[in-house]
């Protein structure tokens, strides 16, 4: 790894929430990602930056279980693990907020928050009867804790603003005792105020002990929120920087290839 700031001894003793070792992904002849080594420590906000096609989304898909790596391995909480599908990653405490949010827009906030994890009065496969009062209580508590403002849990997602939708998607990821939340471009489609609101939500998550992996093109956001930055270029991690010890110029230098 060129020019990477080495982690000090103390942080190496901490077990990373998640760690990738030598992840490589090939699509036929195309090498989308090559030998990616990355670790996320508890409570960290780790940013991934890089130009279009650098391999960021490919990396995220592998870590979220949506795709299998061609080579390399994953560790979660210090243990080797293989993901075959997104639910494997979720069972390991890794939740993903996709760039398109993946919400069911015709359904209300409540249904989206509990999608695939509905609370039921009793368990009888698909015919389990929904316990809506319990879900409503938990939903209000969750939205309140994370600071997501929606008019009501019975509103359809279609009628919400972009920031509110993002909030619902993040709340859905945060509500299950997850260790790590991956966010792919969480504010790309948002205005200034809504972006600020999402930043607040991310800080709240961090203070609750959740680690965040943030894919972003927004340098201001990266400088404001992250503790460390990994720069991807043409499928390789070309730099691993500590945010407090770097600058926007240095990061951009690595992204464009002017450095490293």
């Amino acid at each position: 790894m060129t020019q990477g700031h080495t982690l000090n001894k103390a942080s190496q003793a901490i077990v990373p929430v998640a760690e990738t070792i030598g992840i490589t992904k090939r699509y036929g002849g195309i090498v989308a990602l090559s030998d990616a080594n990355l670790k996320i420590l508890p409570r960290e906000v780790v940013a991934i930056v890089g130009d279009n096609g650098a391999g960021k989304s490919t990396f995220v898909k592998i870590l979220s279980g949506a795709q299998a790596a061609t080579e390399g391995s994953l560790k979660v909480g210090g243990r080797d693990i293989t993901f075959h599908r997104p639910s494997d990653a979720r069972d390991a405490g890794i939740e993903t907020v996709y760039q398109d949010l993946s919400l069911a827009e015709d359904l209300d906030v409540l249904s989206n928050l509990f999608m695939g994890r509905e609370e039921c009065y009793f368990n009888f496969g698909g015919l389990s009867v929904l316990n809506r009062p319990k879900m409503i209580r938990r939903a209000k508590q969750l939205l309140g804790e994370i600071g997501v403002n929606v008019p009501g849990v019975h509103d359809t997602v279609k009628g919400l603003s972009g920031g509110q939708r993002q909030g619902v998607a993040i709340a859905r990821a945060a509500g299950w005792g997850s260790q790590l939340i991956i966010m792919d471009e969480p504010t790309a489609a948002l205005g200034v105020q809504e972006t600020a609101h999402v930043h607040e939500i991310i800080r709240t998550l961090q203070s609750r002990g959740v680690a965040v992996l943030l894919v972003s093109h927004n340098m201001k956001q990266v400088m404001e929120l992250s503790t460390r930055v990994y720069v991807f270029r043409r499928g390789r991690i070309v730099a691993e920087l500590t945010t407090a010890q770097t600058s926007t110029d240095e990061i951009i230098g690595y992204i464009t290839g002017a450095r490293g």
Partner: protein
Amino acid sequence: MNAPSVASTHHTPWQGLGTFLLPKNPAAVVQRIMLFLLVTSVIILCIVNPTFRNPSNLLNIVQQASMIGVVACGMQLMIISGGFDLSVGANAAASGCLAAAVSLSFGVPAGIIAALCLGTLIGASNGVMVAKAGINPFVATFGLQAIIIGALQALTQGRPIAPLPKEWRELGFFNIGGLTFSSIVFIAVVTLLTLMLRHTQFGQHIYAVGSNKVGTSRAGVNVDRVLIATYAIGGLTAAIAGVLLTSIAGVGSPQAGTTWALLAIAAVVIGGTPLTGGVGGISSAVIGIFGLTVLSNAMTLYSISAFWQPAFMGASVLLAVGYEALRRTRRA
């Protein structure tokens, strides 16, 4: 601030009444308009036409609505899931004939069970083609329909299956206070499917799959299983209607059901459910099927040629779809 889907629940009775009368969701508005038109036309017809308000005619309307109504309820589920099934009529014919044929040697109950199994199997096959193979619902269900009709004609030589055990007639004539066996079955299907759609996890997932398939799968829902189960239930309702037809007709009719799929889809659409998926309720199918039945009953009473009926049905579908589309584009 309240824009509930047709499926969502309300907090207080007053708020509930408010959103019921004036929903923000364009699809729900279409449904209220259709319900209003249906109720007013029934009231007007009752006032002006003594034959219409005759209890036997009213019960007759319920009876006529029941058989295809059962199919429409199943269609409703498939449309909410983002698809539809063009093979329900062929399925009903095949299941009805199987019920008749099996009853000849093994009795009526065995016949009915065999029919329901066949119908569910046909529905599940549609679901597998749509979910696992990713075949477009139009192509998958149209193709299976052709196969079923071909096989059925070949096996029966196109001839009705008769004479049948007398229990079929007893079933056909059975009624409680004028409410026939078909109507009772229809009411049961409506009640069960409404409860399932509103209160079970599976019901919730049908909406989710219809609204966003990829997102729902990412949330950990087994989308394929939801789709296969939905089409299987659609097939089951078709088979139920096939059994009802056999009980009413007293014979197994291989030629039956050719218009049922389109009638059922039309009922759902007229009842205010768009074909885009993710929204709607069993109420749509019920309102739609009664709308169509009352329309055809009134046309018969006023001796308007039956040839006009498809034209009126088409016009109603276009009005419902057109209004909903217009509202949606204005909002966007």
